């Protein structure tokens, strides 16, 4: 469904992605792990057309991702994204945030969109917060609204860019459990994360990215339990035992 082929990306003289290729099939959950600055988020942003890439090709359902082309709007309505800092619209309520895309972009009837918006907010456990503004919600609640907003577009896949990194530790669980439910329902997901527990339990496949290349990839159990590459071992060791 998503195909990334040998993409390269530089910010000025600094090459941050040095030839990365992978595919994501329908219904698959792929986690991308790796140290900060390894290019994980940049890859995700390239897939959604928020960032241009210098060479290689990314396609979604056979459509080439080109941020400069009108086709990107069509792609984005089918490929949602959830951000580290939630990025809700602060001047709109939870429900208004969720229906914004369906009503304004997909031209759905407002009544239908609101009906479905309520269902989605109920699904992420926020049926009591329909009319709350983002400023009055906790980080975990805001991120769940953002997930509902992503789902409202009826996407074929969702990209998650470190969705729990900006959250207080006690709020991480509520977001991860919503994501696990989505995975169990068969949603195609690409998740950049530092949550190894989530990766182990939910991911079908894990990519370990360092310095702009995929150092190692494999099934979640295989890569996380028996990493082959020294770098992967080292990274996992540091994440799991931060004080050693």
């Amino acid at each position, binding site marked *: 469904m998503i195909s990334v082929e040998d993409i390269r990306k530089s910010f000025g003289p600094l090459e941050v992605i040095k030839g990365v290729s992978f595919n994501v099939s329908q219904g698959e959950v792929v986690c991308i792990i790796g140290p900060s600055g390894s290019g994980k988020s940049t890859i995700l942003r390239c897939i959604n057309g928020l960032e241009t890439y210098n060479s290689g090709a990314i396609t979604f359902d056979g459509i080439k991702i080109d941020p400069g082309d009108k086709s990107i709007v069509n792609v984005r309505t089918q490929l949602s*994204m959830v*951000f580290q*800092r939630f990025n809700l*619209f602060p001047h709109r309520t939870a429900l208004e945030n969720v229906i*914004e895309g369906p009503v*304004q*972009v997909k031209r759905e009837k407002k009544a239908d969109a609101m009906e479905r918006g309520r269902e989605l907010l109920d699904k992420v456990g926020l049926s009591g917060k329909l009319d709350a503004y983002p400023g009055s919600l906790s980080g975990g609640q805001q991120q769940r609204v953002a997930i509902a907003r992503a789902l409202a*577009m009826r996407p074929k896949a969702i990209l998650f860019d470190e969705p729990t990194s900006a959250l207080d530790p006690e709020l991480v669980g509520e977001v991860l459990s919503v994501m696990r439910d989505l995975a169990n329902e068969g949603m195609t997901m690409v998740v950049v994360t530092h949550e190894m527990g989530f990766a182990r339990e939910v991911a079908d496949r894990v990519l370990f990215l360092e310095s702009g290349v995929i150092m190692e990839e494999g099934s979640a159990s295989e890569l996380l339990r028996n990493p082959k590459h020294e770098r992967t071992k080292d990274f996992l060791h540091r994440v799991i035992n931060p004080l050693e």
Partner: protein
Amino acid sequence: MSDYLARSAQYFPLLLEGVTLTIVVTLGSVFLSSILGLVWAIMAVSKSRILRGISRTFITIIRGIPIIVQLFYIYFVLPELGVNLTALQAGIIGLGLAYSAYQAENFRAGIEAIDKGQIEAAHSIGMTDGLIMRRVILPQAVRIVLPPFGNTIIMLLKDSSLVSTITVAELTRQGQLIASSTFDNMTVFTLVALMYLAMAVPLTFLTRHLEKRYATS
């Protein structure tokens, strides 16, 4: 004192005619400068280098020339180029153009204050640039821009007196005319000053109210 009041009462209707024109000039130029200012501001934040350049050049020129000279130019020079405007039209266009440069800076600051993450999120649900401007940026920018906008209106109200120099019979001009025929400068210009205050003070309170209201949210 009663003499003073009697003379005031005599001048009052004439000065009120001036007030009407002052309000017309102020409202007209607030409207024009807001529309144009928004255009310059949107051009200033656009992706096109040409549009940004046009906007910056215009603002630099306008801000570098005294408003009174701009008014003279529009009223006295444009007719030589075949553009004939009434004094009132020239006044509104002149003040509107001059103030559009200041308004543009206000609006630009408001637009740029919106967090980039929200704009990315809007892109990620398929919103186009125009839709993002209308649905995400402007509704929030308005709140940020309102208090300085109030100040701009007050400044415009006072600067509307500049159009007296191109024969628009607004408040200041009416005052001058009465004073020069009666030599009663004290009465006339006291009344003129009080009438400006009567218009400006409510606006000042409104602006303070807006500042308080939007300072917290």
